[in-house]
């Protein structure tokens, strides 16, 4: 870790070969050796490198929008067209009930957090491999890379959210006071996505199979989350199992907070929060454990 040192610490008076006794050095001494086993979450490292996390996040956003033609539009188009497809397929054809919510709102409200989650997991799972040049040339906590994608995708999410506002006005859906809880659900989605992203990126650095498993798992994940159907359709006896998936609670929460309909968060939410935190913390631990291997493998 690099401790901040003031600009003139090795001051000009040291110029030449001055051998005066010096005050005790404020510089920290650290020992580098092979890490063995589990070494915690690396929270102090994250703190020390918080500015780099900010810069990586900022870079991800800039690069994403500089290389594309319509820039931020992609963040809206993706969930928007999915919403249209879902409205026709699952609404008109399969006639899945939405509990009185206009279908576009019903689907878009779920696609928002789900798109955020799946974008984050797929980009962060590739983040280590994609930054090979960086990783083999300079040290920083490698965790910064997958984590920065969980943060930069929030920007897309925010833009896509503006589209939701337009849809709600168009369909005359009046938000209730519960709207104020949206940030809390976004936070839960971010924690979940970051946790899953850390696991996926660390595994992807070690096993190449992961690259092929991630898209498949994400697709599968969408079916076990209430994206195309309301969670009320899940039989009561499966509820506990169902909410082991934190994204189920996030999506439920989004629909409920936006439209005031559907299931209000209750005990299952607590379960989901717990699972989500466990996912993040174990993700950090697992990542730390494999970090030593990463520079040698990528």
């Amino acid at each position: 870790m690099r401790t901040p040192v003031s600009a003139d610490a090795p001051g000009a008076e040291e110029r030449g070969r001055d051998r005066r006794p010096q005050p005790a050095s404020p510089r920290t001494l650290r020992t580098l050796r092979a890490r063995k086993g589990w070494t915690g979450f690396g929270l102090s490292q994250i703190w020390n490198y918080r500015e780099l996390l900010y810069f990586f996040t900022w870079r991800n956003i800039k690069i994403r929008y500089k290389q594309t033609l319509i820039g931020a539009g992609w963040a809206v188009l993706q969930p928007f067209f999915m919403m249209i497809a879902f409205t026709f397929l699952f609404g008109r054809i399969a006639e899945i009930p939405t509990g009185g919510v206009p279908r576009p709102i019903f689907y878009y409200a779920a696609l928002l957090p789900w798109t955020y989650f799946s974008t984050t997991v797929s980009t962060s799972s590739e983040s280590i491999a994609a930054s090979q040049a960086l990783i083999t040339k300079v040290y920083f906590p490698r965790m910064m890379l997958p984590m920065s994608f969980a943060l930069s995708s929030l920007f897309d999410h925010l833009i896509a959210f503006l589209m939701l506002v337009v849809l709600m006005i168009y369909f005359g859906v009046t938000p209730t006071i519960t709207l104020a809880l949206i940030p809390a659900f976004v936070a839960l989605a971010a924690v979940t996505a970051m946790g899953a992203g850390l696991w996926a990126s660390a595994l992807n650095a070690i096993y190449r199979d992961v690259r092929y498993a991630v898209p498949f798992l994400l697709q599968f994940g969408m079916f076990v989350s209430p994206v195309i159907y309301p969670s009320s359709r899940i039989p009561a006896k499966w509820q506990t199992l169902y909410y082991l998936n934190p994204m189920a609670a996030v999506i439920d929460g989004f629909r409920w907070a936006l439209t005031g309909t559907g299931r209000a968060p209750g005990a299952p939410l607590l379960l989901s929060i717990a699972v989500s935190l466990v996912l993040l913390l174990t993700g950090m631990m697992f990542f730390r454990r494999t970090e030593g291997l990463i520079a040698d493998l990528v």
Partner: protein
Amino acid sequence: MSELTAIRADHLGKRFRIGESDPYGTLRESLMKGVMAPLRWMRRERSPNKIGADMHVWAVRDASFEIKEGEVVGLIGRNGAGKTTLLKLLSEITEPTEGQAQVRGTLSSLLEVGTGFHPELTGRENVQLNGAILGMGRSQIKRKFDEIVEFAGVARFIDTPIKRYSTGMQVRLAFAVAAHLESDILLVDEVLAVGDLEFQRKCMGRMEEASSMGRTVLFVSHSVASILRLCPRVILLDRGGIVEDGKAANVVKTYLDSGFGTSAHREWSAETAPGDEVARLLSVRVLDDSGAVAEDLDIHRPVDIEVTYRLFTPATGTSPTVTLKFTNDEGTVVFASTDMVRTDWYSKPRMPGVIRSTCRIPGNLLAEGQVFVELILASTNPAAIHWMESDVVAFHVQDATSGEGVRGPMVMDWPGIVRPMLDWRIEAEARSPEA
């Protein structure tokens, strides 16, 4: 220089896995290992198997040294000696396999210039990002920004994406960021070998400044000249171990005198032959004009570099081919040559077998000094590098001071990376000025 230790390495070692097996595992292998573990245990096969041990190579082994705060230390050794690995260990890019190192203060490693530069981002954005990656804080970047841009001399283009910059401009900008780091310890790897001469001078000045400010610098270079200029102390590495550590002049002398670890003759047995399933190298030799292996060669006489390899598959077109690159002891590439120029050979199909490709360097071309040869055994279609190594062989070119050399009767150092014997026409004008 203070009495405090900036870096202390204790028996530092790094082992890499090499060989046939891909280091990048697949899930299946790991799963299989997990399933097989109890079986192996039952068969009492718990000791690491012998094949596994052979597939490891120590890039650095048993390296112990101490560097005081404010010291500037050079690190030399031929390619593959473990210099870069040592820097990577000290900068935490890789973890040591054994031993440990202690580092006091903030440390920045410059293993290349422009780490993390992104072509789509503007000069300004890249300065900010690169600064952050190298360990600068936001406020520090803001404070140093104008200075960096001025140092690089790219002020007019600072808001242009750097993909529109020339390579020279990109390098200048990247080095400018690195030059403004305020870390206590700088680890620098050959980055000065880039950019134009004037800029290189500027960078050297900057490095000297850093050392006089009491920073600790560990500097890796092929360039004996810049090592001697910057570093009072030099560590010589070979095959991962420290060979000599001491006064720059002495260590550099050892390095140059021995052409360290690189000889004029390399040979491999069938088992160790480097290469792949298409071609494997058997030997590389430096020969004088009598056909004998020679380390010291007369500047006037031709030199042959003979590369022998075994071809395993029938080949057509330019595959495999031999390319040689010649570098002097300052790290400057003198020239490169490929046997693809022999179109008559490459237009005919070849059968598996031993192939010998020899490159003749005429006399009176190379300058005096150590010459390192890089070998690339590669195919163009399908494109593949079967094997490559820098400094695969080396030799020493000697210019007599007897008065018959290019220098004439002079015995001074003679400039230039080549030393051709050119024709001089000297004539007196027909009419003398007196008449």
